[in-house]
C-alpha cells in the first residue's frame, strides 16, 4: 500500500504515488536547474514539463488509473536526463568547456611529472635501496594523497537528516568517510570525550551541527556518498528513501534523552574543573607576585 497524492499538471489532475511524485518532481527540478542557467533555458524546461504531461495523458487514455514509479521511470527514460539531452543536442559551449578542462588537467599532469624527475635526480646520490624505498614511500604518499583528494572532490559532507540522535553529525561522518557504523562514531566520540583526549569534541560537534547542511534532497544524499547525479542513481536513491527509516528514529527518543543527560554530565564537571584550574593558576600567579 502506498500513499497517493493528486497533482495538477496544466489543468489535468493525476493521482500519483508518493515515491513516483518525488522522482518526478526531482526530475523536473533537475531540468530547471540545468537549463535555467542557459539563455532561454526556462523555456526548454517548460517544454519538457509539457511533454511529461502529454505522456501521462496518453497513458491515462490507455487506461492507467494511478501514476506509479515505473511509469515515471519509463517517461524519464524516453525523454532522457539533462546531461544526455545537452550532449545529444550538440551543446557547443559544453564541448568547449570540457575541452578546456582536459587541457588544464593534462597541464597539471605534465607539471607533476617534472617535479617527480627533479625529485629523483636529487636522490640519485644515495644508494639504490634508499632510492627505491624513497620512491615507494613517495608513491605511497602520492597514492594516498590522490585517493584522499579524489574522495574530497567527489564527496560532500552532509549531516544525516534521516538518521540522527542529536544533529546527525556522527552518522554524517560515517557516510562521508564510508567507514564504520554511525554507532561506532557516536560511541567513539563519547568515549574520547570521557577519557579526556577529545575534550574539544562537544564544541566541534556543536559547531559542525550549526555550520554544515543536512542532507535533505536525494541529490544531497548522492553527493554525500560521492555518487554521480544520474537518473538511475536518483531513482535508486528515491526508492531507498521511501523505505521507512523514520520509524526507526522514533524509538530513539529515550536514547536521545540518555545522551543529553550524559552530555550534561560531561559538560558540567568540565566547567567546574576549568573554574577550579583557573582559580589555582590565579592563586599561583598572585603568590609569585
Amino acid at each position, binding site marked *: 500500500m502506498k500513499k497517493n497524492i493528486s497533482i495538477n*499538471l*496544466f*489543468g*489535468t489532475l493525476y493521482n500519483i504515488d508518493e515515491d513516483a511524485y518525488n522522482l518526478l518532481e526531482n526530475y523536473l527540478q533537475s531540468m530547471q536547474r540545468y*537549463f535555467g542557467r542557459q*539563455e*532561454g*533555458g526556462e*523555456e*526548454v524546461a517548460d*517544454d*519538457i514539463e*509539457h*511533454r511529461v*504531461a*502529454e505522456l501521462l*495523458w*496518453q497513458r491515462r*487514455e490507455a487506461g492507467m488509473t494511478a501514476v506509479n514509479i515505473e511509469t515515471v521511470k519509463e517517461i524519464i527514460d*524516453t*525523454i*532522457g*536526463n539533462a546531461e*544526455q*539531452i*545537452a550532449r*545529444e*543536442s*550538440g*551543446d557547443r559551449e559544453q564541448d568547449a568547456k570540457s575541452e578546456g578542462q582536459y587541457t588544464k588537467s593534462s597541464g597539471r599532469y605534465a607539471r607533476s611529472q617534472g617535479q617527480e624527475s627533479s625529485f629523483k635526480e636529487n636522490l640519485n646520490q644515495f644508494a639504490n635501496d634508499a632510492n627505491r624505498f624513497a620512491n615507494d614511500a613517495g608513491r605511497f604518499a602520492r597514492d594516498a594523497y590522490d585517493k584522499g583528494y579524489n574522495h574530497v572532490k567527489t564527496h560532500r559532507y552532509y549531516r544525516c537528516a534521516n538518521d540522527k540522535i542529536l544533529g546527525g553529525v556522527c552518522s554524517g561522518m560515517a557516510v562521508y568517510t564510508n567507514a564504520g557504523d554511525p554507532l561506532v562514531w557516536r560511541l567513539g566520540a563519547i568515549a574520547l570525550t570521557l577519557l579526556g583526549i577529545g575534550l574539544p569534541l562537544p564544541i566541534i560537534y556543536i559547531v559542525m551541527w550549526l555550520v554544515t547542511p543536512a542532507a535533505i534532497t536525494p541529490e544531497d544524499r548522492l553527493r554525500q556518498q560521492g555518487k554521480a547525479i544520474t537518473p538511475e542513481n536518483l531513482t535508486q536513491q528515491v526508492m531507498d528513501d521511501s523505505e521507512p527509516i523514520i520509524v526507526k528514529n522514533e524509538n530513539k527518543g529515550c536514547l536521545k534523552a540518555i545522551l543529553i543527560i550524559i552530555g550534561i554530565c560531561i559538560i558540567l564537571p568540565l566547567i567546574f574543573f576549568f573554574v577550579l584550574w583557573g582559580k589555582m593558576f590565579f592563586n599561583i600567579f598572585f603568590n609569585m607576585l
Partner: protein
Amino acid sequence: MNTDNTKSQMRKGMLEYCIMLLLHQQSCYANDIIQRLQEAEMIVMEGTLYPLLSRLKNDGLLGYEWRESTQGPPRKYYTLTADGQEALSQLDASWEEISRTVNFLKS
C-alpha cells in the same frame, strides 16, 4: 574502429536540417516532430529535440503559437519563418553538395 562517435556527430549535424525539412511541409507540434524523427531513426531520446527547437527559435528561424488541445495540455505549434525558409534553401544546397561529394568518392 568505434564508429559510434562518428555516427552521433553525423546525426547531430543533420538534426537541425531535418527539423526544418519537417516544418517546411506543415506546422507541427513537438509530438509530431518526435514521431517523424523516430520513424526516420534520427533521434533516440525525445528530450534532445527541445534545446534545438529553442535555439532555432532564438535564431529567428522558427516561430510558434499555442493551440488548445482536446487531447491533453495545450500544444506549441512550430512554423518556419521567412528567415527559416531562406536558411533551409541554403542548407538544401549544401546538402546537395555533400551528397554529391560522397557519391563521387563512393564510385
